[in-house]
């Protein structure tokens, strides 16, 4: 079926990645961040100085030892960095010289049942590739979804091209899909969400999938939007979603017995000299590359896209779920009477600046907040960029006052903070919409029974 998304916004940003892929050699260090896995309280399974291989468990979620994060490289645990209240901030791995990118995992693949596939995914650290809506958390080991979503295009600003990301991994997609179907149950539908009019031939040729087509501005490519249109969530339902590259990774493990955390990412943004694609291993130290590629001194490095990505603070590395690195010049320049100027070069969704005349032009953005924080004043800006059958302002207010019943009734289970990213961008009151929604979800998550999660 074809869904036309009408509300939304494509942000034209300078720094699109060229269609060429460079192989990045393994750097000396690799950083794994437990904060990639939402609301985890990690429990370490290795200690400093331990030797690790690809697939050696590093940490797991407290109280659930089966769901673990494994080492993506071969080497040694150099350090476990802790932050406030001794929470683990990152695990630093020292990569051995001449380390290989994959490792053979022996298993008997003749008669693998659904549960055995599940266990193998958990053992190899591939289970966390799957995430669950509501809450966007890693599903519990015994969870059963009502559907699986594989979003096969990305509509975020400067989003990487899926064909280039997948590259030669395409061949493993079918096997990965078979495994996912087996894990979730044969009757559970698996939706491939494709861009209407895109290069879909390969995806359409896959078996056991249900293709759904989307067109329109961002967030048409967000999995939240796709779930909302294809299979909206009731309070007692869950769906899973997984990136195509991770489907291929699972497929590779099951068809060749090789476990690899090699990945491809796009280096993009107005702060980059030569934006293009790189292949590497997730978690690898990118500081040398970014130092060489950034085109100004004060640049913010973001793992992910500019709307939802996380700022790389001390350790510059690609996060677990990201396939894009964006560099944006830091703002903070003060401008004389900025609010009064015609604003020929100011990007705005509203028509209050003269730049509306050239909205298709690529703008060079900075991280300036561009105004002061205020209470909610404007009431209809959010709805213009929010394609859900949900009242965004009312939901934000329910989150702020922690009215759990109202949140659920308004449909918070269907959304994630990333769905509010555009609202946050266009908000004239400079509200932190994503944080408000995330805090609301956390409040709800903590109050829900484990079994329902």
């Amino acid at each position, binding site marked *: 079926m074809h869904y036309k998304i009408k509300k939304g916004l494509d942000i034209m940003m300078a720094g699109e990645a060229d269609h060429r892929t460079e192989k990045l050699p393994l750097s000396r260090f690799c950083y794994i961040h437990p904060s990639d896995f939402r609301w985890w309280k990690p429990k370490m399974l290795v200690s400093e100085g331990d030797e690790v291989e690809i697939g050696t468990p590093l940490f797991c979620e407290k109280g659930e030892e089966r769901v673990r994060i494994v080492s993506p490289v071969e080497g040694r645990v150099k350090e476990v960095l802790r932050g406030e209240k001794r929470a683990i901030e990152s695990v630093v791995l020292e990569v051995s010289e001449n380390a290989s990118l994959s490792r053979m995992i022996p298993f008997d693949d003749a008669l693998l049942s659904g549960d055995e596939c599940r266990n193998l995914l958990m053992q190899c650290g591939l289970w966390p590739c799957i995430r669950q809506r509501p809450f966007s958390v890693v599903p519990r080991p015994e969870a059963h979804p009502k559907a699986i979503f594989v979003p096969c295009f990305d509509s975020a600003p400067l989003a990487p091209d899926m064909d280039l990301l997948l590259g030669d991994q395409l061949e493993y997609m079918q096997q990965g899909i078979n495994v996912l179907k087996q894990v979730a149950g044969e009757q559970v539908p698996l939706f491939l969400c494709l861009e209407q009019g895109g290069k879909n031939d390969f995806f359409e040729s896959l078996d056991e999938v249900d293709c759904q087509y989307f067109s329109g501005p961002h967030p048409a490519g967000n999995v939240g939007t796709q779930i909302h249109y294809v299979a909206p969530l009731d309070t007692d339902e869950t769906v899973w979603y997984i990136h195509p590259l991770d489907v291929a990774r699972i497929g590779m493990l099951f068809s060749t017995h090789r476990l690899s955390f090699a990945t491809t990412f796009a280096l993009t943004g107005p702060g980059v000299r030569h934006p293009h694609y790189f292949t590497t291993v997730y978690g690898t130290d990118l500081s040398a590359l970014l130092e060489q590629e950034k085109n100004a001194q004060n640049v913010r490095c973001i793992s992910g896209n500019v*709307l939802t990505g996380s700022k790389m603070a001390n350790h510059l590395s690609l996060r677990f779920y990201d396939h894009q690195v964006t560099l944006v010049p830091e703002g903070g320049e003060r401008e004389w009477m900025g609010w009064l100027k015609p604003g020929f070069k*100011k990007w705005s969704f509203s028509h209050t600046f003269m730049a509306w005349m050239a909205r298709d032009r690529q703008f060079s953005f900075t991280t300036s907040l561009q105004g*002061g924080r205020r209470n909610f004043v404007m009431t209809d800006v959010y709805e213009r960029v929010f394609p859900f059958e949900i009242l965004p302002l*009312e939901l934000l207010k329910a989150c702020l006052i922690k009215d759990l019943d109202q949140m659920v009734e308004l449909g918070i289970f269907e959304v994630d903070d990333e769905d509010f990213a555009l609202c946050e961008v266009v908000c004239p009151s400079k509200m932190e*919409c994503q944080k408000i929604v995330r805090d609301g979800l956390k409040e709800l998550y903590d109050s829900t029974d484990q079994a329902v999660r």
Partner: protein
Amino acid sequence: MKLSDISDKIGKYFEKGRPLHKLYSLYDAVDTFLLTPKEVTSGGSHIRDAVDMKRIMITVMIALCPALLVGMWNVGLQHYLLLGQHPGFWQAFGYGFLRWLPLVVVTYVSGLTVEVIFAQHRGHQVAEGFFVTGFIIPMIMPPDVPLWMVALATAFSVLFAKEVFGGTGYNFLNPALVARAFVFFAYPSVISGDQVWVSGVDAVSCATPLALSLNGAPEAMPSLWDMFLGAIPGCMGETSKIAILLGAALLLFTRVASWRIMLSVVVGGWTTAALFHAAGYCPFAGWQQLLMGGFLFGAVFMATDPVTATHTSSGKFIYGALIGVLAIVIRMVNKGYPEGMMLAILLMNIFAPLIDYCVVRCRIRRRKIRISRHKIKL
């Protein structure tokens, strides 16, 4: 030395623990007025739209300017006409400007004082909302209203219609209208009757077209063209319909004001007036009613205040339509007070949360139905 450095240097005296800390909100207001804030995004979206509340408010003020400028000219024109003179453009405009200037200064001083005290007390930044309120208040008062009354009304409205509820964004009544309502109910003699609408001429009866139309003197009505241009007695802001429509065009194009509200107020008012006309209550056609009094000004600049209007999109239609209906009903039924727009908007301000509540419940029900339908499909 750059201006931002100078500002930073001065700012040090206003930091916590320093002698001038009690005036920090004032410093911050002046600082961010002159220079855009240096704050950068933290978490969430890393880039932001260039629009902020200052830009929104300045857009509204620009939209108000045509009505204000024509209004100034008209105040002078009416004054000289009543004295039997025919002034030149600049003479009339100059007179009107001199009537407006003390009003606007008094409004801003009185309102901003309250605003800054509250911002300082709460440790907030000074919100921009009052810039528009203070701009509108002189435009909806009679030109000869005593200054102390304006000061009192403004202070009252900022304090009791806005700040006690938490400031801009939390108020449920339009502060500018509250200021007008305050004068209307506390000092009725300066804001009603036939003798207040022309400046500087004592005790000469000069009714507004609206009053004439309702009190049985339609033959004394000015031409429709005069009503459209704005050469009629009335408040400074409300007389020129063409200037108000110019402002409306800017507000709609920049998407600062809601088209839903504007449209539904006009449709609601027009329909009601047409019904009254059809029933024989009133000799004027529906569309002529829209040109009288403050109807259009209220529809464009007051009813569309996003904070006090309904917040849901479908609620905006109900809210606007009811304002239009009520304004005309008050006009027609209560001939003692022809200007119903102010009361209609204030009344609907009070009902806006109720409308929103109903709309939200409807949407929740619709969502449940939608989900149950999708279940069957799967």
